[in-house]
């Protein structure tokens, strides 16, 4: 599903976020992306969602080479990926329903179909019945779940999440993880960037540890689980 080969990313301001990173995530897998602040977790997610293009190496996501994908094909590419943000990125002046419906609205889905799928998605995150509420009237945990419902509503084969549990208490964090695992069971590939090491250990899932490129290159701890370097 995702393949990085010797990927380097240098920003225009000269900052090198990644160098020589290789990693692979198989279809249907659920992995954690960990590492210190500045190790490049966000950059890896940006490269996967094509918010950035690599300056070196090859990034293949869902069969597409992101370095050379035509700009006109980026929207279709992004529809295959659900993105969950730490700050959830909801439109605060739109009700929950409109927020969750957005990925369907941009693809000209029929209104009945939108209604059905938005409700199903909200049901899965336990927020059915809150469609007309504004996000600001919800708790932080509920807002995060609205963001997850939005990422999943179009049934993308791949979901990436940046610190999805960063603002949640341990109980809510565990619930969120269980939610992700339920989607994983039906075949969704998930990449979750986190610094919640306890959560990673308890889950028993594969962990990719990134190291800051200062000492050479961001290296993935590929294969089996490895003790995080902290």
């Amino acid at each position, binding site marked *: 599903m995702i393949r990085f080969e010797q990927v380097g990313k240098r920003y225009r301001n000269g900052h090198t976020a990644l160098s020589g990173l290789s990693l692979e995530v198989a279809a249907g897998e659920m992995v954690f992306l960990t590492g210190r602040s500045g190790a490049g977790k966000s950059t890896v997610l940006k490269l996967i969602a094509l918010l950035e293009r690599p300056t070196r190496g090859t990034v293949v996501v869902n069969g597409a080479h992101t370095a050379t994908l035509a700009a006109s094909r980026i929207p279709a590419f992004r529809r295959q990926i659900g993105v969950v943000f730490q700050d959830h990125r909801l439109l605060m002046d739109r009700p929950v329903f409109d927020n969750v419906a957005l*990925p369907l609205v941009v693809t000209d889905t029929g209104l009945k179909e939108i209604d059905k799928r938005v409700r199903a998605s909200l049901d899965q995150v336990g927020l059915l019945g809150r469609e007309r509420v504004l996000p600001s009237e919800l708790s932080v945990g509920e807002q995060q779940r609205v963001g997850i419902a939005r990422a999943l509503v179009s049934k993308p084969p791949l979901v990436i999440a940046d610190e999805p549990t960063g603002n949640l208490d341990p109980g809510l964090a565990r619930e969120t993880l269980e939610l992700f695992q339920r989607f994983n069971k039906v075949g969704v590939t998930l990449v979750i960037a986190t610094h919640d090491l306890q959560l990673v250990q308890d889950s028993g899932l594969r962990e990719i540890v990134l190291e800051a490129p200062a000492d050479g290159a961001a290296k993935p701890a590929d294969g089996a689980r490895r003790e995080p370097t902290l």
Partner: protein
Amino acid sequence: MSGSLTAWGARHAQALLSSAGHLSRKPVATALTVIVMALALALPLALGVLVQNVQAVTGNFSDAIGLSVYLKPGTAEQRARQLVQVAASQRSVDHAELITSADALKEFRSDSGFGAALDALEDNPLPHLIVLRPKGDASPDEIESLRRYLQAWPEVDTVQLDSDWVRRYTAIMGLLHTLLVVAIVLLGAGVIAVVGNTIRLEILNRRAEIEVTKLVGGTNAFVRRPFLYTGALYGVVAGLLGWAVVTGTLMLLARPVARLAAAYGSRFELADPALREFALVVAGGALLGWLGAWLAASRELARIEPTAS
């Protein structure tokens, strides 16, 4: 297929409604933009109506090319009558008519409103006038030689060729038409600039929304759509208002113009902008608004790309 077409239509309807909703939520800013645009649309429309009316008031003399032969003061009326016979017998002349100084004075007295002032004069200051209409097939050269022939008569003071006036009139109308085109181009560009700037600010205000929309796979066309509707809506409303401004102004002018026309013994009435002008200004406004929005949106939206943090 028809299902997705319905969805497509619904999406456009929704974009239009959401644009209208956004505009109605900030009425003052919207009103100011619309007023500026309406005035920019009203000016060329007003100029167009002016050109139309000038044409209507003067149009009837464009087919009356003739020669006015003014006789020297003191020429006897009997001599004048003989001259008319001679003039009428010329080969290129279709018709000749004498307006004696007494007739001219009577007409002037009734039309000009200077009756009392004329009474104070001892002598009639007006000369006899012979009005000639050349034959329809007379060439300009023939008319010119006729003019020179008449001018050579000892009793003739001046010969005025009406075609001079027709030429001047045509030149003035040409100038007005050019002015109209210049006004349409300049003020149209103004409308585009006003809409473009308004849309640009609107896009910056809704940056977060645009980023998220692009992030979930919204195309540039999808993101641009509501802004194009906003621009076109501005144009339509401004066109309606501009039309109302011109129509209202004409209603205010109707009475003074009627009085003025009556003073000249004319029944001239101002022509209102017709349905054609109405459709032109509203459709033109919509088109300019759409174009301004398209220019601004294409420029700004390409610069807004989602970021992860």
